[in-house]
């Protein structure tokens, strides 16, 4: 297939030339593909070029020493250099491919070799273009945050609780394999101790949210449960919620956050007991229930001996949930403005199926299949799906961006 494509791509060569001088035309839509490589849209490259010139300007200013140190600008600078680096890499690789292609077509004797070489470069090119695309799209506002994972069983009774426990183990192992700091904030087993009623896992690595945010949604499992006596396959679900961690660790910061709520917005319930309390009783119950009226969020926290700590944890989770809610709303608004775009990452849908009899994991959003249940549940192969999902997401977002740009152009014409 590769061969035939290369043969008949005189047109694409022209396109490549145009690309290298950076064509301004937005309407020029044809893209070339080599095997599984798809060239980036000229509009995106245009963007990259703009960044490159901005970086150059910035560097000039910096070398003159006319700028004072500014954290925000430094951050921006490092982001720009990352973009420009991958852009340059992309350009050089694509021009190599281009040259090789010309060679293959003009010179009979070198055709075989050139095609071999192209084949070798293509995977690298796919990677570079993916990275560039990722850099070019506006980053998620919480992409540098650590994250909190909440896992709850869905339909399926005890089996769902066991599956929720399996998921928790998987994420814990994943964090462990990556050598990320993690701890369990809250963990409530069911009565028989075989599964969980709910659990909250905190992964304290900056950027963990970016990696794991596509895990949010309903996970479906199909297997013969341990509780099943007749060997039938059951389908159960567990829900995963991924939240960005917002609170800083310092006690002062947490306290000032607690104080930022109006008293009538929030209600803190502690252990309710009859009797006089105080010196009359000596309770060990430190459970705290936090209710946030405007959003209707209720959080129970009881794992710590210290009521104070339980409260602080509850507030940290409230904060994460509110931040996530706000972000979701913003995204929804943006989507509504785009008129009826179908969202692909809706969390009300099931996002993934774990089929144990077939040893298969399928992600329904990007259609990715993985056949290694054991490795996946041990948290070793989760990266495969995470990467697939991230690529899928950046593709979708790139398409949305292009569509926006085109609509804009059409309107302005």
């Amino acid at each position, binding site marked *: 297939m590769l061969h035939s494509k290369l043969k008949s791509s005189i047109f694409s060569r022209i396109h490549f030339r145009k690309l290298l001088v950076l064509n301004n035309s937005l309407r020029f839509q044809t893209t070339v593909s080599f095997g599984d490589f798809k060239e980036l849209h000229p509009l995106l490259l245009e963007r990259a070029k703009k960044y490159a010139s901005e970086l150059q300007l910035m560097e000039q200013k910096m070398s003159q020493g006319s700028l004072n140190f500014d954290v925000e600008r430094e951050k921006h600078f490092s982001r720009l250099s990352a973009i420009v680096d991958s852009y340059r890499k992309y350009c050089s690789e694509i021009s190599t491919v281009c040259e090789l292609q010309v060679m293959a077509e003009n010179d009979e004797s070198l055709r075989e070799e050139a095609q071999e070489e192209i084949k070798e470069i293509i995977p690298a090119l796919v990677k570079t273009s993916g990275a560039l695309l990722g850099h070019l799209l506006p980053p998620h506002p919480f992409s540098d945050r650590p994250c909190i994972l909440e896992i709850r069983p869905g339909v399926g009774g005890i089996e769902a609780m066991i599956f929720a426990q399996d998921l928790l183990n998987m994420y814990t192992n994943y964090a462990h394999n990556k050598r990320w700091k993690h701890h369990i904030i809250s963990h409530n087993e069911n009565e028989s101790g075989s599964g969980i009623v709910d659990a909250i896992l905190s992964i304290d690595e900056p950027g963990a949210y970016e990696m794991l945010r596509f895990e949010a949604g309903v996970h479906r499992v199909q297997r013969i449960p341990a509780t099943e006596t007749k060997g039938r396959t059951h389908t159960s679900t567990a829900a995963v919620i991924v939240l960005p961690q917002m609170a800083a660790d310092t006690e002062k910061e947490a306290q000032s956050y607690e104080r930022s709520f109006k008293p009538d917005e929030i209600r803190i319930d502690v252990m309710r007991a009859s009797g*006089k309390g*105080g*010196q009359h009783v000596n309770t*060990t119950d430190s459970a705290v229930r936090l209710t946030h009226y405007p959003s209707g969020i209720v959080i129970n926290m009881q794992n*710590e*001996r*210290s009521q104070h700590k339980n409260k602080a944890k509850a507030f940290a989770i409230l904060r994460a949930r509110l931040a996530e809610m706000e972000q979701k709303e913003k995204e929804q608004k943006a989507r509504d403005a785009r008129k009826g775009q179908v969202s692909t990452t809706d969390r009300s849908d099931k996002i993934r199926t774990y089929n144990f009899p077939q040893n298969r994991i399928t992600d329904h959003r990007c259609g990715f299949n993985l056949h290694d249940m054991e490795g996946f549940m041990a948290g070793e192969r989760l990266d495969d799906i995470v990467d697939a999902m991230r690529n899928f997401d950046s593709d979708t977002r790139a398409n949305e961006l292009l569509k926006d740009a085109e609509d804009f152009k059409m309107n302005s014409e």
Partner: protein
Amino acid sequence: MPRIRPSTFRKALAIDKALPFLLPECRSIAAAKQELQWIKQECHTKRQVFEFCKLRRNHYPLQYLLKSQPFGPLDISCKRGVLIPRWETEEWTMDLAQRLVSNSELRLVDLCTGSGCIALLMKHLRPKLTVNAFDCSPLAISLASQNAQKLNIHVQLGLQNILDDSAAAALPDFDIITCNPPYIPHSTFVKETSTSVKLYEPKLALLGSFEFYENLVKTWLSKTDAFVYEVGELSQCTYVQNKIAQDSILSKLWRVGFKFDSNHRIRVVYGYKQANTTVDWSKIFQDFGELKH
């Protein structure tokens, strides 16, 4: 209190052999499991876990077993013979500390300090305070100084019976006084106090009715600008309120309020001077509780 059903015991036994022992104190399987987890965290051997659980069946306080009780961000050591800090006390102390400006240089006196929890937490949250703490029990003072050393918080500790009139006279004037005096009257001790408290906590830190509130009005009010006293029942609050209202000089100078805890029980009686103070107490105590006088 309703009896625990035998079926609950059986269920607990199926989960963990040590669990049924915790049921009399915890009352429910969920709470017992939580407590078992805490015990397991502190114990190294299974045998020790078992022993602790057996002690818990005899209502021995968990805090004495694990030798500590969280109090705000601090971990306060606990020992037989000294009262275990309560969450209600933690709640109002945290509230009070957060009302003070973070660099306030006030002088605070904590009476009946016991494990030293109130004094240490106040000093920890507002390090610029000068804190004096007193107790009449040598056991309490030694534990409090141990706590202060362990947490590296500097408070002045003194062994003194505060009901003794000469105690106050020896001290210079100060800004605020906190106290968690024994407030369970003899008459209600048997009926309204839980078994664990009755059997294992020091009566010295529990039994009292009005003597500390009387002592407050009589001796300590003249030395301070504000006071916060924990109470067990409404009569103790009204006692302080009436005493101040009846005195013509005090009545003009002082305002008195009551504060309830999160469990809607009366917990604190507080008061402050309206004039001639280093800080504006009316602002600090705004919405702390309900002003009555």
